[in-house]
C-alpha cells in the first residue's frame, strides 16, 4: 500500500496546493515542499529498512509489490513494484522535487497554485513510471508526465531567443515525446497480442510478457519501438531536438526536473523494459546503440561549445553525458551498468546544480546570454565558487560522483568494446572544454558591467551546499548506492552474456 501512497501523495499534494492559493501566496509553496519532503522521507525510510541483497532462488526480486485488478477484461492491473533501482530513482525524484519547489520560491510569482499543481503532477507521474510494472499502467504514467510539463514550459517559461517562443518549445517537446510514446504503445499492444495468440491469455503484466516468444522480424521491430520511445526521452541524437529548447525556455524548476529526473525515466525504461523484454534483439542492436551513444557524446559536446545561452549549453552537455549511460546499458557489463546508475544520480545532482545556478544568475542579471556575462567572479560572492564545483563535477573530476560513474562505465565497457571506450574518452577532453568554457565566459575575464550583485541567501546557499555535499559523498563512497542496485544490474548484465554462460556451463556438465 505504501507504493500507492508514494504515487498518490504528489497528486494529492498538487491538488491541495492548487486550492491553497486562495489562502495565501506562500501556502502552495509550503504544501508542495512538504509533499516532496514526505516522498523523500518515505523513500529514505524504505531504503534504510530494505534488504537489497540478490534474491535467493524462488524469492521475489521485488522489495515491495502491490497489485489490484483494474480492467480485468483486458488483463490490465494496477501492478506496482519496487526494487533497488526504482527506490533510488524515487528517492531522487523526492529530492529533486524538493529542490524544484525551493528554486521556484522567488522565481514564480504568477498562478503559484497552478504552477505547483503541474510541478507535483509531473513528479507524481515520474514516481508512477518508476513503480508501474503493468505495461498499460506504465504507458499511462509515461504520458501523464508530459501534459503538466507542457504547461510548465508554456505558461511559466522564459521568452526565448529570437524566433523561439516558449509555446513553440513546449509544443516541440510535446510532439516529440507524444509521437515516440505512440510507437511504444503500438509495440506494447503488439507484444500483448502476440502473447495472447501464444497462450490465449490477455495480459499487460511484466512477468507474463517477459518470456513471450515473438517471431523474429517482429521482435526486432517491437524492441525498436521501445528503444525509440526511450531514445527520444534520454535523449539520443538524432532525437534530441526538443531538449535544448525545452531546457532553455523552461523555468528553473522545469529544467531541474527535466535534466534530473525526466531523462532518467528513459534510462530506467531501457533497464526495466527494453532490455529484459527483448534480450537477444537488444544484444544484436547493441553496436548500433553504442554508436548512437558515441555520436551523442561527441555531438552534444561540440554543440555545447557553440552555445551562447547558458541553459542551452548545459542542455547539450546532458546529451553528452547521457551518451555514456546509453553505452553502458548496452555493454552487458555489470560494472558499466552500475556505473550508469551512479552517473544518472550524479548527473541529476550536477545538472540540477548548474541549472539552479543559472536560474540564480538570471534572477540577478536577467539574462541567460553568456555574451553579457563575464567577470562575475568579483561581482557575486560565493556563487562562482559553487559554479566551479559543479563545472568540475560535470567534467568528471575525481571525488565527484560523476567521475565514479563515468569511469565505472569506461572500465566496464573496455574489455567488450575497447574502440568504443577510446572514442568515448575523447568526450572526457571535450567535457573539459565545454565546462571550462562556461566558467571562462561567465565568471572570468573583464567585467561586462560593474557593480556588486546580491550574494546567495540561506535558501540558495543551502540548496547548493546540499547538492555539492551529495555529489562528493557519492564520489567518495558510492557503495551504499551500488549495494542497493547490485541485485538489479547483475541480471541485466547477464541478459547479454547469459547465453554464453549457459553454453559454457552445459559444456562443463557434459
Amino acid at each position: 500500500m505504501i507504493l500507492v501512497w508514494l504515487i498518490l501523495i504528489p497528486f494529492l499534494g498538487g491538488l491541495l496546493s492548487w486550492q491553497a492559493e486562495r489562502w495565501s501566496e506562500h501556502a502552495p509553496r509550503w504544501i508542495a515542499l512538504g509533499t516532496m519532503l514526505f516522498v523523500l522521507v518515505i523513500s529514505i525510510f524504505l531504503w534504510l529498512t530494505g534488504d537489497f541483497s540478490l534474491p535467493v532462488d524462488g524469492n521475489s526480486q521485488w522489495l515491495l509489490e502491490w497489485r489490484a485488478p483494474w480492467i480485468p477484461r483486458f488483463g490490465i492491473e494496477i501492478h506496482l513494484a519496487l526494487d533497488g533501482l526504482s527506490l533510488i530513482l524515487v528517492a531522487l525524484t523526492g529530492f529533486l522535487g524538493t529542490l524544484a519547489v525551493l528554486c521556484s520560491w522567488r522565481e514564480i510569482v504568477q498562478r503559484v497554485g497552478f504552477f505547483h499543481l503541474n510541478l507535483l503532477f509531473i513528479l507524481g507521474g515520474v514516481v508512477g513510471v518508476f513503480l508501474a510494472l503493468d505495461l498499460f499502467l506504465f504507458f499511462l504514467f509515461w504520458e501523464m508526465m508530459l501534459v503538466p510539463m507542457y504547461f510548465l514550459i508554456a505558461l511559466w517559461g522564459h521568452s526565448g531567443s529570437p524566433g523561439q517562443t516558449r509555446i513553440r518549445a513546449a509544443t516541440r517537446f510535446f510532439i516529440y515525446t507524444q509521437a515516440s510514446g505512440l510507437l511504444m504503445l503500438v509495440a506494447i499492444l503488439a507484444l500483448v497480442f502476440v502473447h495472447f495468440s501464444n497462450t490465449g491469455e490477455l495480459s499487460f503484466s511484466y512477468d507474463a510478457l517477459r518470456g513471450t516468444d515473438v517471431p523474429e522480424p517482429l521482435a526486432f521491430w517491437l524492441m525498436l519501438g521501445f528503444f525509440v520511445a526511450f531514445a527520444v526521452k534520454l535523449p539520443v541524437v538524432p532525437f534530441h531536438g526538443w531538449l535544448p529548447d525545452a531546457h532553455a525556455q523552461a523555468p528553473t524548476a522545469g529544467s531541474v526536473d527535466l535534466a534530473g529526473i525526466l531523462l532518467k525515466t528513459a534510462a530506467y525504461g531501457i533497464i526495466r523494459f527494453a532490455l529484459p523484454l527483448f534480450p537477444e534483439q537488444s544484444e544484436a542492436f547493441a553496436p548500433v546503440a553504442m554508436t548512437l551513444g558515441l555520436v551523442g557524446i561527441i555531438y552534444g559536446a561540440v554543440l555545447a561549445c557553440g552555445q551562447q545561452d547558458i541553459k542551452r549549453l548545459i542542455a547539450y552537455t546532458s546529451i553528452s553525458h547521457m551518451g555514456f549511460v546509453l553505452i553502458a546499458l548496452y555493454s552487458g557489463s555489470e560494472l558499466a551498468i552500475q556505473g550508469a546508475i551512479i552517473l544518472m544520480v550524479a548527473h541529476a545532482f550536477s545538472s540540477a546544480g548548474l541549472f539552479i545556478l543559472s536560474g540564480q544568475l538570471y534572477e540577478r542579471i536577467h539574462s541567460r546570454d553568456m555574451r553579457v556575462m563575464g567577470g562575475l567572479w568579483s561581482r557575486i560572492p560565493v556563487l562562482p565558487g559553487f559554479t566551479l564545483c559543479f563545472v568540475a563535477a560535470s567534467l568528471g573530476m575525481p571525488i565527484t560522483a560523476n567521475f565514479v560513474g563515468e569511469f565505472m562505465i569506461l572500465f566496464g565497457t573496455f574489455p567488450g568494446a575497447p574502440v568504443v571506450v577510446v572514442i568515448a574518452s575523447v568526450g572526457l577532453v571535450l567535457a573539459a572544454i565545454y565546462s571550462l568554457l562556461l566558467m571562462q565566459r561567465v565568471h572570468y575575464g573583464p567585467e561586462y558591467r560593474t557593480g556588486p550583485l546580491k550574494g546567495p541567501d540561506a535558501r540558495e546557499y543551502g540548496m547548493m551546499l546540499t547538492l555539492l555535499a551529495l555529489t562528493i559523498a557519492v564520489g567518495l563512497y558510492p557503495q551504499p548506492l551500488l549495494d542497493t542496485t547490485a541485485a538489479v544490474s547483475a541480471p541485466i548484465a547477464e541478459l547479454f552474456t547469459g547465453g554464453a554462460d549457459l553454453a559454457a556451463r552445459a559444456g562443463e556438465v557434459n
Partner: protein
Amino acid sequence: MMAMAVILSFLFPLVGTLILAFSAGRLGPRASATVGVGSVGLAALATLWAVLTHTGGSQGVTLWNWISVGDFQPTIGLAVDGLTLVMMSVITGVGFLIHLFAAWYMTGEAGITRFYAWMNLFVFSMLLLVLGDNLLLLFLGWEGVGLCSYGLIGYYYQNSANGQAAFKAFVVTRIGDVFLALGLFLIFMELGTLDIATILARAPELWEPGSTTANLAALLVLGGALGKSAQVPLHTWLPDAMAGPTPVSALIHAATMVTAGVYLIARLNGLFLLAPDVMLLVGVIGAASLLLAAFAALAQTDIKRVLAYSTMSQIGYMFLALGVGAFDAAIFHLVTHAFFKALLFLSAGAVIISCHHEQDMGKLGGLWRKLPVAYGGFIVGGAALVALPLVTAGFFSKDEILWQAMAADQTGLLIVGLLGAVLTGLYTVRLILGTFHGEPGSDHARHPEPGTNVFTHHLPLVVLAVLSTFIGAWIYPGLGELFPQAPGETTDSGHTLLQVLAMGAAIAGLALAGWLFLMRRQWLDDIARKGAGARLWTLWHHAWGFDALFDRVLVRPWQWSVRMLRFDFINMIMNLPAVVARVFNAGLVRAQNGRTRSYALVMVFGATLILVALALAPGGGA
C-alpha cells in the same frame, strides 16, 4: 604511528582548504595567510614525523573501500615507502617554504583567501597522488592537482589572457590524462587489479617482455606523464602557465606537479621495464624536450618564461634518466631540481614584486646592488641549475644522470645531455646578466623596493639556497634498493672520464656565455637582429612553433566545426516533417478560399484528370 602521521599530513591542508573556502571573505588577509601557511607547516611536521617513524619497506593503510563491484575493488588506501616519503618531504617541505614566501609576495593582493585555498588543496591533492596505493586514487590526485593548477594560473582572472592560459593548461594536460585513463582501463582488463604493488608483481608473470600489451600499457601511461610533466609534444601549456602568481609557478610548475610524470614512471618501473621500446622512447622524448626547451630558453625576454623552459629542460633530464632505467637518478634530480628551481622562482618573485610586477629582462637590469638577497638566490640557484661542479646539488644529480646514460651505452642521449649542459650555462648567465647587471631598463628597475621581511622573505630564500648547495645532494637518502638495478650499478668503467666531461660541459657553457655576453654583446645583438639570425631568434622565441602548429592542426579545425555545428544540423533535418506539414498547410489553406469559381475550376480539372487516367489505364478506353 606512521599511519597516523601520514593521514595527518594530508588532512591539515584539506582542513585548511575547507576553512578558507567556507570563510567566504570573513577571514582577513592575515588570518587567511596564517591558515594557509600554517596548515602546510603542520603537514610538513607530520611528514617529518612519518619519516622518523618509518621502519623501512612499504607500509600501507586502507582507509575505506572506495568502490566494490566484482573484481573492481579500488580502495582509498595509502602505501608509504622511501619514494613516497621523499616526494612527501619535497611537497610539504618546499611547499611550506613557498607558502611562507607567498605571504610576502601576495601582500595586498585581492582574493588572498582564494589563493591559499587553492594552494592548500593543491598540497592535499599532490600528497594523495604520491600516497595512493592504487592507480585510481593516484588518478584522483592527478586530476586534483590539474584542477588546482587551473585555478591558480587563472588567479588574476580579470585578464582574459590568464583565463586562456589556465584553460590551455587544463585541456592540454587533460589530453594526457585521457591516455593515462586508457592505460588504466587496459591494465585493469589485463591484470584484474589497480593496486600498484599487485600490478608490479603480476605484470612480469602475465606479460612477455616487449609484448604488444606491455608496450601499449606503458605507452598509454607515458602519454599521461608527458602531459603533466610538460614534455614534447604536450608541453605547450607550461610557458603560458607562468600567468599565475610566481609562488604558484615555483610550487606547481617547477617543484612538484610537473614532476608527477617522473614519479608515475618511477613508481611503475616494473611496467616500463617490460616495454624496452617505450623505455627508449621515454629517453628520446626527454632528450628532445631537454634540447628544444634549452634553445627556447635562450630566446626569451620574460624571466619567468626563461625559468619555465628551463624547468621543461630539466624534467627532460629526468625523463632521460628514466629512459635508461636509472630511476633513482631521476628522483634524485627531481629533488635537487625542486630545491634550486623553487629558489630561482622565488628569487624571481622577489625581483618582480620589488620592481612593481616588471618581469621583462629588457626593462630590468642593474639590480644586483639593490636586491642583494634576490641576487644571492639567483647566483646560488643558477649555479645549481648549471651544475657547477662539486659545490652545488644540481651537479651531483645531473652527473648521475649522465653517468647512467653512458653506462647504458646510450651515447646519443649522453651527447644531448652534455650539449644541454652547455646550453643551460648559456641561458642561465644570460638570465642573471639581463636581470641584475647592465643598465636598468625602466624606472621600476631604477627604484626597486627590496623585500625586508626576515621571516617571510629572507628565510625561505636562504633555506632553499642552502638546500641548493651540495647539502641538498647530501641529504638525499638514495632509493637504489627500491628500484630495479640501474645500468651504472654494474660497471664503473669510464665514470671518471664522464665526470670530467660533465664538469667540462658546465664550465664550457659558463665560459662561452661569459665570452658571448660580456665580450661580444654587440656582435651577438647584430646577428639576432637580421637575416637568418633573426629568424632563428623568432623560431626559438616561439619555442620551435609548436603553438602555431597545434593552432593550425587542432584548434582552428575544432573552432571551425563548433561554428559549423552551432545550429544543430541534425535537428534541422529532424524538423523537415514540420516544414513539409507547414507547406501543405499553407497550400490547403489557400484552397479553402470560399470562392465558388475556383472550386468549380478545381472540380473540372480533377474530373478531367480522372477521365484521362481511366482512358489511359490498361484495359480502359475503348
